[in-house]
């Protein structure tokens, strides 16, 4: 029996005065309410506990399932990685096959065109000579494209990263381009350039591409004025190569870095459509960014960043 009920009975049968009985009953009433509240709380706690236990069971099960899924994904990744390595190797082989197997028939075409021109040149009519010129020009263009694709695929594959004095590299590039610089009467100024950690041939090619573009797309009216500068910006070196050339519509500032996209007609200028995409690949190989600004008829500035050597080491 409930102790409070028993107590009530005892009190009603006791010799307490009615006031005393009422007082004790009042106290008992409080106790009764407290006890009921306690029971209610216990029931709630029990409910909560069951709920939590169920919830935990479910969560553990879910976690186990997720773990299994993750394990599957890891296995898949491993497989994909292996496949990627194989695909990359295949691509490299493919580039070599292209370079050799496509160049050979091309060489044959070029050889016979020059033979025809030499041996039958006098007896060929004007039209035929024009046709032959098209054949040889297109073949040469294709040959250059194939070489450019091969070079592009080799970026960062040959050679090792070392400390490179950019001033030295740029001076070498200017020496290589000295004929063009002289012919175009170009004026080139260079700031002091930093030492960076990178691929020697690739950086040479990067500067060569950007400087020769500045020479190539010069205005006919005035000699090219080219400035090469570099400043430290945050963790990076920020290089700029600016010119006073023909420039381009800023609308195309992204498209110029896409492979095989040219802004200028292939018949007017010599360009494989690969130079700037090559520059982009080289800068990205060095964990930098490349971009361009231009105003038509005023000139262009090409910017790129390369992480500073000290920072590069810490990373």
């Amino acid at each position, binding site marked *: 029996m409930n102790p409070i009920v028993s107590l009530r009975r005892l009190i009603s049968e006791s010799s307490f005065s009615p006031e005393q009985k009422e007082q004790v009953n009042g106290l008992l009433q409080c106790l009764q309410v407290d006890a009921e509240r306690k029971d209610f709380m216990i029931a709630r706690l029990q409910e909560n506990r069951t709920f939590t236990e169920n919830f935990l069971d479910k969560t553990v099960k879910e976690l186990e399932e997720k773990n299994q899924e993750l394990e599957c994904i890891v296995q898949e990744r491993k497989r994909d990685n292996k496949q990627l390595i194989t695909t990359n190797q295949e691509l490299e082989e493919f580039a070599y096959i292209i370079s050799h197997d496509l160049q050979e028939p091309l060489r044959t075409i070029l050889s016979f065109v020059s033979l025809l021109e030499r041996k039958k040149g006098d007896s060929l009519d004007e039209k035929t000579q024009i046709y032959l010129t098209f054949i040889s020009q297109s073949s040469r263009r294709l040959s250059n494209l194939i070489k450019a694709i091969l070079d592009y695929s080799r970026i960062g594959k040959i050679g090792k990263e070392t400390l490179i004095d950019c001033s030295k590299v740029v001076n070498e590039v200017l020496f290589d381009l000295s004929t063009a610089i002289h012919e175009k009467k170009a004026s080139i100024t260079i700031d002091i350039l930093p030492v960076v950690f990178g691929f020697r041939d690739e950086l040479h090619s990067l500067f060569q591409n950007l400087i020769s573009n500045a020479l190539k797309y010069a205005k006919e009216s005035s000699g090219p004025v080219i400035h090469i500068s570099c400043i430290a910006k945050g963790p990076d070196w920020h290089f700029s190569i600016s010119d006073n050339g023909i420039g381009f519509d800023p609308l195309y500032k992204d498209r110029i870095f896409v492979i*095989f996209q*040219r802004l200028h*007609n292939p018949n007017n200028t010599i360009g494989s459509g690969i130079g700037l995409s090559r520059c982009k690949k080289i800068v990205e190989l060095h964990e930098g960014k490349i971009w361009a600004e231009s105003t038509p008829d005023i000139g262009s500035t090409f910017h790129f960043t390369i992480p500073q050597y000290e920072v590069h080491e810490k990373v």
Partner: protein
Amino acid sequence: MKKFNCLVFIDDDYPTNYYHNEIVSEANVCEHVIFYERASEAFEFLKAGGGSGQLMPEIIFLDLNMPEINGWEFAELYNKQFSNNSSRIILLTTSLNPADQQRAEECDSVSAFMHKPLTLEILDELRDTWLS
């Protein structure tokens, strides 16, 4: 035999234009043929109503991969500017990309997608279906 009044070719590759000029002359399918190496110039020509000679072309043969305004951009500009024009665009490209073919089918002003170069047979066929 009926002939086209005017055909326009837009292609940045000079040898290709030269070749097409030879083929079109040999096929003898049109009165006039005009070549543009820049899409923007062709667009100006069309905007001016076909130049002083009012040569609105029946067909515009359009290359896709070109510097500055490329083929797709030209087709889009053309759609906006000349929605009720009678000239139709035939995309002429070396691209073997199926995605390009799909895109061509979705493009309003584009009637067909053909691979370069045009041949005598294709020109004859175009004349027969277009002008019958």
